Each structure stands twice: as structure tokens, then as C-alpha cells.
């Protein structure tokens, strides 16, 4: 199996999904901007919207709603969702911390940052804290190589991190307690 095909979650009883009015309007505008017959081009941007409206992950129900909206076969949506690493195929915490682990960040101390976060949050990279607050992900290069170690949370980049800075960030996020998404403005 390729490194890029990840299983989707088919857990029974996943809650139903429907787009918000604003989300639906945004999806329709996206689909209309490509040439005639090419609205499938909107699939990735629309999956981002669906993920943001489904607590930060893509359930089968959310993907099926996308397929229905776009007139695609279900598999066309699943195969794309499972290819791209920003799409979460399992439930995630309120905050997803994407910590870069690739070589340029490694040279600047990302291994230590990841270990620190694993200890502090009590989860291994890939896991979610028991209170559902944080999902810790070790990810590949985020294009912030001169300002590593770094992490992404929602749309925001947090760069030149030290243990003190990341501790302060965790405290701040915990007290704010409101979901962040890549699509945040």
C-alpha cells in the first residue's frame, strides 16, 4: 500500500453532515469559476470547507455530502481526501498542532520540540489528548525553514519556537478553547 493512501473512518453512528448556508454559497461560487464541465477542479477547496464545518475532519458523511453537491462518485472524493495530508480522516482535537519535522527544521531543533510536546501533552505524535483539546501531528516541510523549529495551528504559523514560547502558546490556546481551521481568515 502506498504511503499516500490512508484508510478512511467508517465508524457507525458518525453524526450527519450538511453544509452551512455560507459554506454552501462559497462551494457554489468555487464550482462556477472553472470552465464549463470542469467544476471537479473545486474538489480540494470544497473539502477544506467541509473539514472546517465538520469539527476539523472528513467523515464519510461529510465526503458523501461533497460528492452529492458536486455530482461526483463517492470514490472520486475518497481517493482525493485520502491522498492529501491536510485532510484528517479521523476525529481530531479542538486544535491540531502540525509540527514540522523535516531536515531544515531538524537542524534547528524540531526533534526536541516534538519530544517536549509529546511529554507535555501526554500523547505520541499522531495522537489526541484525552480531553479532546489537542491533536499533535509531526508533518513534513511547511516552508518555514529559516524560522524553525515551527508549528502550524489553523491558518497561523508559529515560528522560531523555544520551549518557553511553545508552553505559552499551549496555555493560551487552552484558555481560548475555540477551534481553529486552515481556512480561518
Amino acid at each position, binding site marked *: 500500500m502506498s*504511503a*499516500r493512501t490512508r484508510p478512511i473512518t467508517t465508524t457507525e453512528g458518525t453524526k450527519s453532515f450538511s453544509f452551512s448556508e455560507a459554506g454552501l454559497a462559497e462551494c457554489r461560487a468555487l464550482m462556477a469559476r472553472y470552465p464549463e464541465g470542469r467544476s471537479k477542479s473545486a474538489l480540494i477547496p470544497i473539502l477544506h470547507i467541509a473539514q472546517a464545518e465538520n469539527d476539523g475532519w472528513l467523515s464519510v458523511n461529510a465526503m458523501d455530502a461533497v460528492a452529492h453537491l458536486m455530482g461526483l462518485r463517492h470514490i472520486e472524493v475518497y481517493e482525493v481526501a485520502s491522498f492529501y495530508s491536510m485532510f484528517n480522516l479521523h476525529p481530531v482535537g479542538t486544535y491540531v498542532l502540525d509540527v514540522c519535522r523535516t531536515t531544515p527544521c531538524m*537542524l534547528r531543533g524540531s526533534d526536541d520540540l516534538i519530544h517536549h510536546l509529546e511529554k507535555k501533552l501526554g500523547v505520541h505524535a499522531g495522537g489526541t489528548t484525552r480531553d479532546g483539546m489537542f491533536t499533535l501531528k509531526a508533518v513534513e516541510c511547511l516552508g518555514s*525553514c529559516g524560522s524553525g523549529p515551527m508549528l502550524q495551528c489553523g491558518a497561523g504559523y508559529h515560528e522560531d519556537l523555544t520551549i518557553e514560547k511553545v508552553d505559552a502558546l499551549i496555555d493560551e490556546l487552552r484558555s481560548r478553547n475555540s477551534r481553529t481551521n486552515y481556512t480561518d*481568515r
Partner: protein
Amino acid sequence: MGRKLLFEHITKPGIRGLEGYRANGGYRSVEKALKTMSPEAVLEEVKKSGLRGRGGAGFPTGMKWSFLAKPEGVPRYLVVNADESEPGTFKDRYLMERIPHILIEGMITSSFALGARVSYIYIRGEYFYVARILEQAIAEARAAGWLGKNILGSGFDHDIHVQVGAGAYICGEETALLESLEGKRGNPRIKPPFPAVKGLYGCPTVVNNVETIAAVVPIVNDGGEEYAKIGIGRSTGTKLISAGGNIKRPGVYEIDLGITCDEFINSDEYCGGVDGRAFKAVVPGGSSVPIVPYELFLKTPAGENRLMTYESLSDGGFAQGTMLGSGGFYAYNDAQCIVRSTWNHTRFYHHESCGQCSPCREGTGWMEKVLHRLEHGEGRMEDIELLWDIQRKIEGNTICPLGDAAAWPVASAIRHFRDEFEYHVTHREKVKDPKHFAREPFRKSAKFATA
């Protein structure tokens, strides 16, 4: 200090907005091209400039443009590659974030030359906030009449859309990018047909890097010959280099191609030298290019000063040279372990392999396993030959260059740092400590000191 072409105004207040950008001479190239030049004349200036693709391959841009097929009644597209996911590279993000209009301007001028009525910016999903900045810039440009129908009364129509990806290194490869833009998995296509003939939606398409398209602005403003005066030989103009790793001054620098590597890495105008230890190795053009020992980065095999040009960096071939690549520059100090770094590189390529071609899909995973055991004190001497064998069987045997990109860092690490790999077998207990060389830097044995 060299001339700045892309960064000349980057620190001016308000440069991110249309008004500030216009106040500093922005959109002059669009006025000049649409009012006084033919599309062919713009192409001619780009050819004269000697501009080469800034995404990594260094293919002459004018030639790429001249390959674009122009069948009657078929739309053509310009697609800007803002996927920027080559480890070490963050120059395009810096440019788009701070001076987004230079990209928009370059796209309009370039699209005029290519006859494209619609163009797309494909930007990696992690740069969502940069995509918002670009969308804002496009909206400003549209409201001011730089985009839309009949721009400047020239009869030329153009519009630009920003498309976000969702996390996949492979989508920086131009045909994988086009697949992704069509709403599919990012599996590279077999070439030929090249995108210039059959690209986006099966139509003729030019795919260029952000920096390449931005460079069209000064080329059209001042003329291709003026641009070609900067640089040496076939490396003309300026290049953005994003510098990181164990240097004093990380950041994005616009250099004149042709400055010495020593000046770039050691002068206070650029990297500012090592961060308090000693330099050990350099990766000058993104993770895919061969890693070279510091000494070999400074001097060519003939003992001359190495220059920051496409030709000089590759002087000595793969045995003793490297590549300018994307300009994703990072340097290693002597606390770093080359085996650990090679394992890290290989894990990246394994993670990012699209899975289409067996040599890459299986080979990257296999190499990662072998490198993992070497780095964690469980390796055998035969593993070094095994790695060499696997990388040779990947290189050149895949649809796209990701296979080569995965092979080169492994090959060059073994070529130049074989003794460190051997040390990992002979000192298994020591290397179990992940910071083994931070406490006790590795010294080359006499056997390898001159290799």
C-alpha cells in the same frame, strides 16, 4: 551589494497594497507590454534575458514559452507553481506575503505574451493565509482595471484564480500540479505530451514558478539585455535564496548570480557565517540536490572559488558538485549527524511518494528502514552497500523526478560521508544517543580526509 530587482521596494510601507505598489512603479510592465509591445516582442525580451526557471530545474523560460502550442480556438493557460514544498525553500512565501502584486503583475504581462485569458496560482494548502493575501491583491487589481475585460483598452482580457492544495510535495511537479488542479490525486503524468501541448484540461499550458513570473516584471520594464548584464554566462539575473540551518542570519536574500559561495555563506550581508561551531556540510538548492562537504561547497574540484551559479555549483558533476536547484539553502554545523539527516530526508521522500512507480514507492520505504536502523545503532556494514544499490535502482526509473530526488541525497551522503556511516556500525552504543555528535563532533579518519 548587488541590485535588487524583486526586493527593491519590499520594505516600503504599504507595498502589500495596490496603492503602495503603484506608488513604487508597480504595473509599469503591464502598461508597457499592452500599449507598446506585441506578445512576440515580450517573448523576445524574456528570451534575451536568459531567465531560467527558478523552481529548481533551471530550464530557459523563453524556450519553454516558445514551445507553447497555439491551435485555433483552443484556450491556453498560465499556471503559477506556488506549491513551494522543497525542503529548505521558503522564498516564494516571503515574496507573495510581502509584495503580492509583483506576482499578479508578472502574470498579466506573461499571459499577454502567451495569449492566456485565464491563469491560476496553485498554492500549497499550508499557505492558506498567503492565498488570502493573493486573493485580496487580485480583488484590488480587478477593481482598478488591471484584470478583467479589455485591460487598458488593449482588447486583452485576463483573470486570475487562486487554487489551494492540501498537503502533497509531489504537487510541485508540474504534471502532478495540473492533476491536482483538476481535482484529482497528485499523480504525475507521463511526458510527452508535455504541458505546453496538453496541459490543464488537455489544453496548452505553461507552468512557471512564482519567482520566474515575478522576474518577468523587471525584464519587460528594463529590457532583457539589461537583465542579462547581471550574472555570469548562462546564469543571468538575480536569484532569491532562502537560507536556513546552522547559520547566523537565516532569511531570504536576493543575490546577483555569480557571487562567490564564500561571500554568500560567510559575509554579514547574507548568512553571516556559522552559528558558533564549525561548518560541516551544505545543501545549496533544496533537499533534492546532493549534499556536499563545506570545503567542496567553497571550492570547485580544480581549486577555484565556487560561485553561486547553475554551472559553478554543478562543477565536478555528481561526484564533487551539487546544484543551485530551487535556492533552498541550508548548512550543517559539526553537531549534526549526516546519517540522521539522510534518514530524515528519506523519510520525507517516502512519505511524499505518490505511489505510482514501484522503484520509488518501495525503494524510498526500504531506504528509510535501513537508514533508521543505522542511525539507531542497529546497522550492519552491508547496509551501506545495500543503500547504494537501492538508490541506483530508483534513479532514472520513475515517471517523475521524485525518484531521483530521493536517490541523490542518499548517494551524495554515502559518497562524501561514508566514514560517518561506518562509524554508526562500529559505534552502535554511542549513536543510540540521538545527540551523539552534538557532544562529541565526528572527526574524519585519515582514510577519508582527502576524499
